[in-house]
């Protein structure tokens, strides 16, 4: 197997003296499709931010493509949760997606032709090219998710990190989303954060359960016992279906 895209070794992270992640050892390889699952506040987003060099480990190391995370950023596409964005900000969809090109475009002045072509491609991939002139704030939650994923794709990354790409998504289009994400995974390594195990277990190769410590499972190994260990007694398994050739778990909060 090729060298891992992401390696975390003996990593711990504390915030204001509060231990968030402890003794994390993790390796994710080229073109794997991996999901971080776990309860809210379990450290999933923190793990992503450590991979981006936005946070720094208290102990241990992170290497992305063998580099320090901040040096690997040109190879990474990132979709943050959109809750922190100002809903009144006057910016068009196209301008949002072009932000993905900031590290590649010239140091000043307008975006280049190449930037616009890459942004167009990303918008078309996510089926939101028609929205390009719209105000970002005028979009629905699901449309915003797509635009932010398009922004993550615009730099043509080799590693895609998606924080809660399914949040606020209509159940009816979940299937289409599976296909999109599977498509990305054919070209690059994809890590997504989700608290919806039902969504990810149909989709990904590997599930990383994050609740202060980290345990990696092949999707097919997930059992009810693992789910309740990760989520505690709040979660219960309500459906167990083997029709897709793999195991499907639907989890709901009781």
């Amino acid at each position, binding site marked *: 197997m090729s060298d891992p895209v992401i390696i975390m070794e003996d990593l711990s992270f504390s915030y204001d003296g509060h231990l968030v992640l402890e003794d994390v050892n993790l390796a994710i390889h080229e073109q794997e499709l991996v999901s971080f699952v776990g309860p809210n506040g379990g450290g999933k987003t923190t793990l992503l931010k450590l991979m981006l060099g936005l946070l720094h480990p208290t102990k241990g190391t992170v290497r992305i493509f063998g580099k320090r995370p901040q040096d690997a950023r040109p190879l990474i596409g990132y979709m*943050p949760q959109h809750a922190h964005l*100002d809903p009144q*900000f006057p*910016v*068009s969809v196209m*301008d949002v997606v072009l932000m993905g090109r900031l590290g590649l475009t010239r140091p000043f002045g307008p975006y280049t032709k190449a930037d616009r072509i890459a942004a167009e491609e990303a918008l078309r991939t996510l089926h939101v090219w028609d929205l390009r002139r719209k105000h970002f704030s005028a979009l629905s939650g699901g449309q915003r998710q797509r635009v932010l994923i398009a922004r993550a794709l615009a730099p043509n990354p080799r590693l895609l990190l998606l924080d809660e790409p399914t949040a606020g998504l209509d159940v009816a289009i979940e299937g289409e989303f599976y296909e999109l994400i599977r498509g990305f995974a054919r070209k690059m390594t994809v890590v997504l954060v989700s608290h919806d195990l039902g969504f990810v277990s149909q989709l990904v190769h590997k599930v990383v359960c994050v609740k202060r410590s980290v345990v990696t499972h092949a999707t097919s190994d997930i059992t009810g016992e693992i789910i309740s260990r990760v989520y505690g007694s709040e979660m219960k398994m309500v459906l167990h279906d083997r029709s897709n050739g793999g195991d499907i778990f639907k989890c709901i909060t009781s």
Partner: protein
Amino acid sequence: MYNFLNDLARFNFLQYALVTGVLASVACGIIGTYVVVRRISFIADGIAHSVLAGMGSALFFRTVHGWEWVSPLYGAVAAALVTAIIIGVVSLWTKEREDTIIGALWAVGMAVGILFIARTPGYSTDLMSYLFGNILLVTEHDLWLMAGLDLLVVVAGVLFYNRFLAVCFDDEFARVAGLRVEVFYLALLCLTALTVVVLVTVVGIVMVIALLTLPVAIAGFFSRSLWQMMALSAMLSMVFTTAGLVVSYEPNYPTGATTIMICAVAYLVVVIGEGLRKRGRG
């Protein structure tokens, strides 16, 4: 109106005042837009008040110690830049509460300025003009300095538009995309500081914040992108400063206060108009 036009043709000070308003409006539209969308108008106001320290001390050294080359405007530029950098450094790299620091710099800047001015003979008219504007006292030298600041602000604001836009909209993403977010944030604060200095001349320290934000707020109702907001607010601001000058001239009203009232009335009309339009639709 006739008297105004008549005098405009005759008096340099009135021409300078008019040009000052136009210059200030351009910087105001561009930087004011960044300030409003990034929601840092409290920082801008803190910088504006700290400017008094620079103006007061410059006045003191010039009058009492005979340092002729120290213009209050130089003092203002220095004080504004120092304050902007302190606020930027505190908010980027320390865990201190940003608003506490801004409030402290705001008050300390005023205090320093007032102490210096109090020790300067013949202080009261100067203090009034710093606080409430002195657009009719602009000299040719001031005008050149302001034109220089304006050019700097406009070139930087336009050249790095995409980068400032990204830093204002989503600084975390901008960092991941490869931008030196700290550099751009500090640069934005410094540009804000320079803009504030230009505006202080027009409406005075106390009222800067209204001229920096109200035209942008009005433009926000009619703009779909940041650059439209910039262009429209710059034009509105030109209209307001010119109108302020014209309206206040004959009855001898304070120009700064008149300009602000015109801004405020325009804003109120637009807000109410938009409110009615929305209700009429829904």
